[in-house]
């Protein structure tokens, strides 16, 4: 178990290092990153001095090493716009993102998992058909459009809820619903298919033959064995949600990481973009690690595998 834990932690560390490398080369795809860091109408001698100032005239490997060196010390350069270190700027946006992600994940867990279980337990009935129809729709509706339509109905027409911004619980309703739709649909589908799978297994037949009632079969035998795919998809969703939701946060002017990265992209503030994209990936990798470790707890076979 300790060996497995260490191996997974090592892999995650290697992946974080690779993510740093990807971010470094991401802004260099075009060959000349200086252009990204300047307005399009910058004069040639300004371009040259900025190139020297930011070190882009040095060999790439040298830039890469100094970028890594800085990153290890938490120094990702300064925001071009605010002229302060980029890392704290982005970190300050995480609380709002975490609040929204936690609300959305709670809704997903409370709504999607029961829908999936009921759908699976009553497979082939009207309830199941409705469940499948709703989840198919949830996966097809683009988030940005759903968000705007919710704004139109509940903000503009009915005037029940604020159209955007951050504040009391009423501000959480529309953004978290927008985020929830897609993820809940996905989790419900995975829940349904893994519970259906589990219900077809021999041990479920044995449990039924022993005379355990259907509720007990479902709760004690099927669910426990269907848990891994559900935890996996829930974990992947959590990993992405906690890293910031660019589209939803932008539509609702939510002061989180996603909106901040998007604004930095628009302002061409690439040091901030690099930190933001990197942190998003780190969170995802860490959540993934937690999910993997939870397998060992859910399924003893993994522990000894």
């Amino acid at each position, binding site marked *: 178990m300790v060996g497995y834990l260490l191996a997974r932690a090592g892999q995650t560390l290697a992946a974080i290092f690779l993510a740093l490398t990807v971010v470094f080369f991401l802004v260099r795809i075009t060959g000349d990153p200086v252009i990204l860091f300047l307005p399009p109408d910058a004069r040639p001698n300004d371009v040259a001095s900025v190139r020297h100032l930011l070190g882009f005239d040095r060999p790439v490997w040298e830039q890469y090493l100094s970028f890594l060196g800085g990153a290890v010390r938490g120094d990702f350069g300064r925001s071009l716009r605010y002229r302060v270190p980029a890392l704290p700027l982005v970190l300050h946006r995480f609380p709002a993102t975490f609040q929204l992600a936690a609300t959305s994940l709670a809704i997903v867990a409370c709504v999607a998992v029961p829908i999936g279980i009921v759908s699976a337990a009553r497979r082939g009935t009207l309830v199941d058909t409705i469940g499948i129809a709703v989840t198919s729709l949830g996966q097809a509706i683009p988030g940005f*459009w759903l968000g705007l339509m919710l704004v139109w109905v509940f903000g503009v027409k009915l005037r029940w809820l604020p159209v955007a911004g951050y504040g009391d619980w009423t501000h959480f309703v529309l953004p978290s619903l927008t985020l929830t739709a897609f993820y809940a649909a996905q989790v419900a589908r995975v829940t349904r298919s893994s519970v259906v799978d589990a219900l077809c297994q021999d041990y479920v037949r044995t449990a039924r033959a022993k005379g355990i009632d259907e509720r007990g079969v479902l709760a004690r035998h099927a669910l426990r064995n269907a848990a891994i795919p559900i935890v996996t998809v829930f974990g992947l969703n959590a990993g992405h949600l906690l890293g910031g939701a*660019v589209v939803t946060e932008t539509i609702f002017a939510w002061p989180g990481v996603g909106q901040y990265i998007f604004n930095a992209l628009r302002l061409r503030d690439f040091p901030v973009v690099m930190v933001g994209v990197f942190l998003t990936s780190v969170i995802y990798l860490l959540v993934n690690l937690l999910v993997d470790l939870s397998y060992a707890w859910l399924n003893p076979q993994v522990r000894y595998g």
Partner: protein
Amino acid sequence: MLGVVIVSTVVLGAALAPAVAPYNPTTAHFAAVLRSPTAAHPFGTDQLGRDVLSRVIFGARISLLVGVVTVLIAGVIGCALGLLSGYYGGWLDAAVTRFADVQLSFPFILLALTINAVIGAGLRNIMLSLVVAGWPLYVRVVRAEMLALRHRDYIQAAVATGARSGRVMWRHVLPNIATPIIVISTLQVSQFIIAEATISFLGFGIQPPTPAWGDMVSDGRNYIFVAWWLTAFPGAALALTALGVNLTGDWLRDVLDPRLRA
């Protein structure tokens, strides 16, 4: 089957757009700006007096083009890398899978959006960014299938009879893993269509005046307080298309591989 009907309708509409669209999608009529839906303009008119229905019909072209072409390119690259890395293993496998895993740790939209911010907006660049962001999924699936087949008797037999590696992969492995590839590709098409629309909505994709659904919703957002139809119809077309493609994917999965039916 409903999915196939929806997809065929969208494809036909896109192909015959000049014939079925009642108006020119880019001609402005400043005398008829922001008209709500009527018999003459069933989806209303936009802030330049252009017919929203005609723009929605023409918008299908960009969505389908981007969805299909990018999935094909990302699929070919991803499948090739997945086959090679599953077949040969070793350092190539380690490098490709590590890289694919790390790339999957970046949110798809954020990665594509950042690439677009770096290389610039426009149709060609948005397709490029989707391909770059989209190939790792294929690597994961194809590599896993390749590993599962690697020790099957018929593959071993082909190798034993002296078939070259390329031939083994192309003639013996690929046909046997076609089903999961086709099913994922269908689902990827709807993912990519929505991704293109999202990026265009955020202003880094298709630029006006080309009618594209994401860009139309983005315009509509500015008029959401006065003209809901600008946002509602292009988005509904997008959702319906994605739904049709997803249902087609589910249907294909059931037809092609009954084992996967859940």
